[in-house]
């Protein structure tokens, strides 16, 4: 790997390292890594655990259930059932669903019922998946589990 050049003086400790072969190795490794690296990192959104899963069996049923429904006309309906019943409708914010208002409502519910851990999210048939994900993402900041519903 390294070639020692003893120019004149036999006691000289100077030597030249032959980097060409190292460069060759690096080029091959870098080319392989560049080809195989995924530059998009894929994350996972947990859409909750439905009743059939083992984790859910140990949980006691919540005293209130909150269901959020995204309507195709950009309105959001919130239905609270259990020890109290409430129906709320959130108006659209411009051409979008009013997610900020939804988050503040969820936060209020959480203060009112600290045992509230999950919300069921559903949407109208023609609502795009990425809009549902956006709403889930917003709600995840306030509530532990956001489960998909409507089926």
């Amino acid at each position: 790997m390294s070639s020692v050049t003893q120019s004149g003086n036999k006691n000289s400790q100077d030597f030249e390292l032959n980097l060409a072969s190292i460069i060759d190795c690096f080029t091959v490794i870098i080319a392989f890594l560049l080809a195989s690296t995924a530059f998009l990192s894929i994350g996972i959104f947990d859409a909750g655990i439905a009743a059939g899963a083992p984790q859910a069996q140990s949980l006691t049923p919540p005293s209130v259930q909150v269901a959020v429904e995204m309507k195709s006309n950009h309105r959001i309906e919130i239905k609270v059932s259990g020890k109290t019943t409430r129906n709320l409708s959130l108006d659209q914010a411009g051409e979008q669903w009013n997610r900020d208002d939804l988050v503040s409502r969820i936060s209020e519910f959480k203060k009112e019922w600290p045992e509230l851990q999950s919300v069921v999210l559903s949407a109208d048939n023609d609502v795009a998946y990425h809009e549902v994900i956006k709403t889930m993402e917003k709600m995840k900041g306030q509530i532990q589990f956001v489960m998909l519903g409507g089926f």
Partner: protein
Amino acid sequence: MSKFLKKLKKRGHNSTEMNLQITSMADIFTILLVFLLKGYTTSSVTITPSNDLFLPTANASDAPADALKVEVAANGVQIDGGLALPLTQYKFVQTDLTQSGTSQTLTAIFEKLRARQLSIAKNNTDVKIDSKMIVIADKNTPYSTLKTVLASGATHGYTDFKLAVVSNK
């Protein structure tokens, strides 16, 4: 190049041999290598969406675990890499849908997969029945299509839905 040689001769250098300075190149390559190795995923689970599939973007940091992969694109549903059912612009064939909102074809496939998992679990106690399902759906998929896929999986115990997104962290 010839100008360079003339310059060398002017300076009294008769030799045309050149020494390429590759130390700095080696430095650059080392930095590149360290950067690439740091970003290289060591996870055993790889999710590679099809070319025409665009995942939604969200702030999700959970790493994907090994589970049944269901891909929903505009032209079809794939289960574990194999085409399970063709779709027309995300729409199921009406005759394939049941009254409960499930797909007959998908339900049959999920049933087969579940039966195989059960038979393996019966003979090998180390194998546990898994309810996880990774949903790799295109960002423009209508919720009705997604509902049908999820409902079909849920009928055979695939109830722990993991939604794959492009992490914007």
